[in-house]
């Protein structure tokens, strides 16, 4: 408004000091009114003054010349006095007004001399009172350059007779900047002649600063929005082909490739995973920097996070022959609320680093409770290695933001080099802090704290592992690595097992023998595979051959190496053991393995197995469902179709939202899998349109998108979709999400998998076998096949040994058969063999023994035959 009334100009007398104090009314109309008032007032004042002067002049004249007129003159004088009184009152009134406005206000004559000023001007000039200023021009008060500028605008106003608004930026002697707005008006006398100027100046600094701040904020917000849009787009563009690569290699791995081809595809798969890791790091870091990373708050099991860590890092540790172990208290609260993925990310990162920078020795991952109340718990995690260590100087920079200098390190060791910077930020977001202690050459100890919620309604502690019949079992731990030995010994003791430990094979043999001699025999020997001198395999063989008063203890091989490699080694050296326990050993795995080895059935409830069951369950529930897949990318179409069909889902494909709407009119579907970003019509729009139709209001629509930015889930829900599956697709999660929402209208007749079916018919509990092989189906199949091969003649071998009078060998044969049968889940054979074994130990009569031998053969023969039939079917 104002700029339309006044023409404006801008003056900037740099360095000029006026020392304005802050203040200012907020509305311009007030200023305008004030100026108008002042102008009228000043005009009146001038009128009075001129009247008075004129009156005085005439008075003096008349006084001198006409004494006779003195009386009249007196009367006149009194009128003058009256006028002067009026004037005084007007003057005081004006001064009061002027002094009470927060702006600088002044009146100058045509020569630029101050006629009147208010208190603000006095303050601005830093003088004692207005008399110092009155009668002086700017040239006598302020530097020449500034005075010239002011005089210039005064003259302009007087020449044009118009008002002028001047914006200027002033800087005081301390360098502080002020924005000042000045309005100048020509002052006219009663005859209309211009007789000076009136000015009012206002300090706009505060308002200006607020404006600047607002603008800066808007710019920053826009930039931030552009940034996160870019990241979302980049993430989408990268993940879409990544999804295809990872998914297709996953499918190819199960398509019957020969070993070399499998190897190639494995390389593709591993490269893709590593690429995804780096890309995730870059995106994560950028998201954190842009303040866009949000922590999840979901119920999770800490045990799952640790199991997953073992799966991911265990293999790498194994390849470098490093001991990886867990140190966790048995009563650790594990049912937590927080962000399991981010916690896992930090743990995997630190543990991966530990593996990367350690050549020999061990890595231990520890968890402990720092603090807990009824609702939350603060945990402290530690990752300790015996690696190269970190110098004090490096430690300082370790968690800092990525710098170019670090690129060379990451090049040498792989990865993005962003890991620790990301970890420290994630830990902060989890309400904790991260740190490191390290001695170069000795190793490093990374630790961090994090706070988690405790699941409401859940038991405050996990139910203690039920030892059952295992309670009080005697365990001997044999491991050359001090730390590993102590961890497993400690774990066994804390579980209530009666455990002892020795450091090598000969020690183990001596300990087993002396325990047997004092009638306190060991039931289980946990034997490390790779030990200097006598290795685990050799030790197991000798333990079996030693003559003891008691049945030889059951041997479990501890290995950080591949289960299969260990089993192969054992087979090639013809040593049979009861099972293999993979490091790092968790308490539940230890109990499971001991129970299985001793033939004590323990409810199979390992989380891995539960997950496996869950997946089969999900797929079974989805079988027969008719699903519309809406996806524009051909490769992803193919991938999703292959995965869905594999689960017995009837899939129809639409290339975009518009096509999907069209197909919905023609066919009936139990659910829709909807990509979000598509040409023609995107998934959000298609969903909105579908939801407008009454018949589709409850139809499950699940988004499938490569965007995994925080807030994406909210966005798809807001668009009316039910849930969200992120790409690259995690097969388990995908089926779990689908099963949560989609119910087939016509479920397929669920047929149990033929393989499992045939195992059940053979009396084999495949669940036990799968648990023993940690869900490794291929390994389990090989175990079954080798059982069929190796145990086919076991009854003959046993009879032979017995006939030859070699009781020891006979017992060993039975013992082996019992444990192997237990491992593969052949419960009947295991039971029959155990009975025979007991009968022999008890010195039963030959007839009884013969009957029991027959029982074993009866249990064994159909299993061998059945497995052989299956084996040849597999091979076809």
């Amino acid at each position, binding site marked *: 408004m104002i700029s339309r009334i006044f023409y404006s100009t801008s003056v900037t007398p740099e360095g000029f000091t006026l020392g304005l104090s802050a203040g200012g009314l907020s509305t311009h109309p007030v200023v305008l009114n004030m100026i108008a008032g002042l102008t009228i007032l000043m005009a009146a004042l001038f009128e009075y003054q001129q009247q008075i002067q004129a009156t005085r002049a005439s008075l003096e004249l008349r006084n001198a010349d006409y004494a006779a007129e003195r009386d009249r003159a007196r009367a006149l004088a009194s009128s003058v006095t009256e006028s002067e009184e009026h004037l005084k009152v007007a003057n005081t009134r004006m001064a009061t007004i002027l002094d009470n406005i927060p702006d600088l206000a002044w009146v100058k004559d045509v020569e630029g001399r101050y006629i009147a000023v208010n208190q603000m001007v006095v303050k601005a000039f830093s003088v004692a009172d207005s008399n110092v200023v009155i009668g002086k021009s700017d040239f006598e008060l302020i530097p020449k350059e500034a005075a010239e500028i002011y005089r210039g605008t005064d003259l302009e106003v007087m020449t044009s007779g118009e008002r002028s608004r001047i914006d200027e930026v002033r800087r005081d002697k301390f360098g502080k900047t002020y924005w000042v707005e000045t309005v100048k008006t020509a002052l006219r006398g009663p005859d209309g002649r211009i007789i000076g100027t009136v000015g009012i100046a206002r300090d706009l600094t505060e308002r200006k600063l607020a404006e600047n701040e607002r603008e800066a904020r808007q710019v920053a917000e826009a930039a931030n929005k552009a940034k996160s849009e870019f*990241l979302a787009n980049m993430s989408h563009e990268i993940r879409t082909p990544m999804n295809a690569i990872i998914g297709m290699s996953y499918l190819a791995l199960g398509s019957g490739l020969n070993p070399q081809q499998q190897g190639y595809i494995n390389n593709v798969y591993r490269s893709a995973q590593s*690429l995804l890791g780096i890309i995730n790091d870059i995106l994560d870091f950028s998201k954190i920097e842009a303040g866009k990373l949000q922590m999840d708050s979901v119920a999770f099991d800490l045990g799952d996070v640790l199991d997953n860590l073992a799966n991911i890092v265990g293999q790498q540790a194994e390849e470098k022959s490093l001991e990886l172990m867990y140190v966790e208290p048995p009563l650790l609260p594990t049912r937590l609320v927080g962000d399991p993925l981010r916690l896992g990310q930090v743990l995997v990162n630190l543990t991966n680093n530990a593996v990367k920078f350690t050549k020999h020795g061990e890595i231990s991952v520890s968890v402990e409770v720092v603090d807990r109340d009824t609702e939350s718990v603060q945990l402290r995690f530690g990752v300790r290695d015996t690696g190269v260590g970190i110098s004090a100087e490096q430690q300082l920079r370790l968690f800092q933001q990525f710098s170019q200098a670090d690129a060379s390190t990451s090049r040498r060791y792989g990865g993005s080099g962003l890991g620790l910077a990301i970890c420290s930020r994630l830990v902060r977001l989890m309400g904790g802090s991260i740190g490191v202690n390290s001695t170069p050459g000795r190793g490093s100890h990374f630790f961090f704290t994090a706070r988690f919620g405790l699941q409401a309604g859940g038991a405050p502690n996990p139910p203690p592992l039920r030892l059952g019949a295992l309670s009080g079992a005697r365990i001997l731990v044999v491991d050359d690595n001090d730390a590993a030995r102590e961890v497993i010994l400690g774990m066994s003791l804390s579980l209530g097992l009666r455990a002892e430990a020795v450091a090598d094979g000969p020690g183990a043999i001596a300990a087993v023998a002396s325990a047997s001699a004092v009638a306190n025999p060991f039931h289980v020997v946990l034997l490390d595979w790779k030990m200097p001198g006598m290795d685990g395999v050799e030790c197991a063989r000798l333990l079996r051959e030693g003559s003891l008063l008691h049945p030889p203890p059951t041997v479990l091989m501890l290995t950080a190496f591949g289960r299969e490699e260990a089993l192969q080694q054992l087979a090639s050296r013809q040593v049979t053991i009861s099972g293999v326990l993979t490091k790092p050993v968790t308490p539940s795995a230890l109990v499971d393995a001991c129970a299985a080895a001793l033939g004590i059935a323990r409810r199979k409830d390992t989380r891995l197995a539960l997950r496996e069951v869950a997946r089969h369950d999900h797929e079974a529930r989805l079988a027969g469902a008719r699903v519309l897949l809406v996806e524009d990318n051909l490769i992803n179409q193919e991938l999703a179709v292959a995965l869905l069909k594999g689960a017995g889902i009837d899939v129809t494909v639409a290339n975009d939202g518009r096509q999907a709407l069209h197909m919905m009119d023609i066919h009936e579907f139990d659910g829709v899998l909807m990509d979000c970003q598509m040409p023609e019509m995107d998934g959000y729009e298609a969903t909105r349109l579908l939801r407008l139709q009454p018949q589709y209001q409850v139809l499950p629509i699940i988004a499938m998108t490569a965007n995994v930015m925080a807030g994406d889930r909210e966005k798809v829900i807001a668009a009316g979709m039910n849930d969200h599956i992120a790409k690259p697709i995690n097969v388990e999660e995908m089926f779990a999400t689908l099963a949560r929402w989609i119910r087939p209208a016509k479920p397929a007749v669920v047929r149990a998998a033929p393989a499992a079916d045939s195992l059940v018919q053979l009396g084999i509990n495949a669940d036990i076998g799968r648990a023993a092989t940690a869900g490794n189906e291929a390994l389990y199949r090989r175990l079954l096949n080798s059982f069929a091969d190796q145990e086919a003649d076991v009854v003959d071998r046993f009879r032979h040994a017995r006939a030859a009078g070699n009781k020891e060998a006979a017992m060993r044969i039975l013992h082996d058969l019992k444990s192997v049968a237990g491992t593969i889940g052949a419960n009947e054979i295991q039971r029959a063999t155990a009975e025979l074994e007991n009968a022999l130990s008890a010195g039963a009569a030959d007839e009884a023994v013969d009957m029991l031998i027959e029982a074993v053969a009866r249990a064994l023969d159909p299993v061998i035959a059945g497995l052989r039939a299956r084996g040849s079917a597999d091979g076809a």
Partner: protein
Amino acid sequence: MVHKTPAGELLRAMSHELRTPLNGIIGFAQLLLRDKTLNQRQVTGISAILESGDQLLVLINTLVELARAEAGAWELNPVEVSLRDWVAGVMDVVQAGAAQKGLEITSEIAPGMPESMHVDDRCLRRVLMNLLDNAVKFTERGRVVLRIDGERAGRLSFSVQDTGRGIAPARLDSIFMPFGRSPGDAPRVQEGGLGLALSREFVRLLGGELRVSSKPGSGSTFHFDIANT
């Protein structure tokens, strides 16, 4: 202030780390495809891996190039080339695509233009190829013209004009942003929505500014001029 690509610095520093696994993916996929014992399903799957790998490589290369150009970390390498021959070479490449859609594509060099130019051949080629490819992609009928003239002394002015669908005024600014072309918008160009952003940066490196004028429904013209050093 130039819009800096977020994560640009990281991508630049990580380009080696990103390409290494990509090479693994592409290399092993190629190796597998040579194997004649694969069945049809396996070949299709592995071809998809290879295709996605190639796509990812182009995308990552372009992101890294963009970040390098933005950071000014791009060394120009000007060479002396014959203007006419060079333009003919560029036109040869785009001719086929245009012919497939039944479009006329021509180049016009204004009279009085110098015989040769001294430019960074790679940068300029990328820019023009991208603009011509886009013009062909977004034009259903009519023609695409590449014009070269020199209105100002010592400068070469390039323009690519099409008779395509044009660009809505509201979107004229955003088309130069990385991924600025919204996903709802027709199939992606090779660089996955980075082509114009990269072209703009390259033109800046060459000392010009890429601009566009467009009328929805009747076509777009992209133009820039650069110094003929």
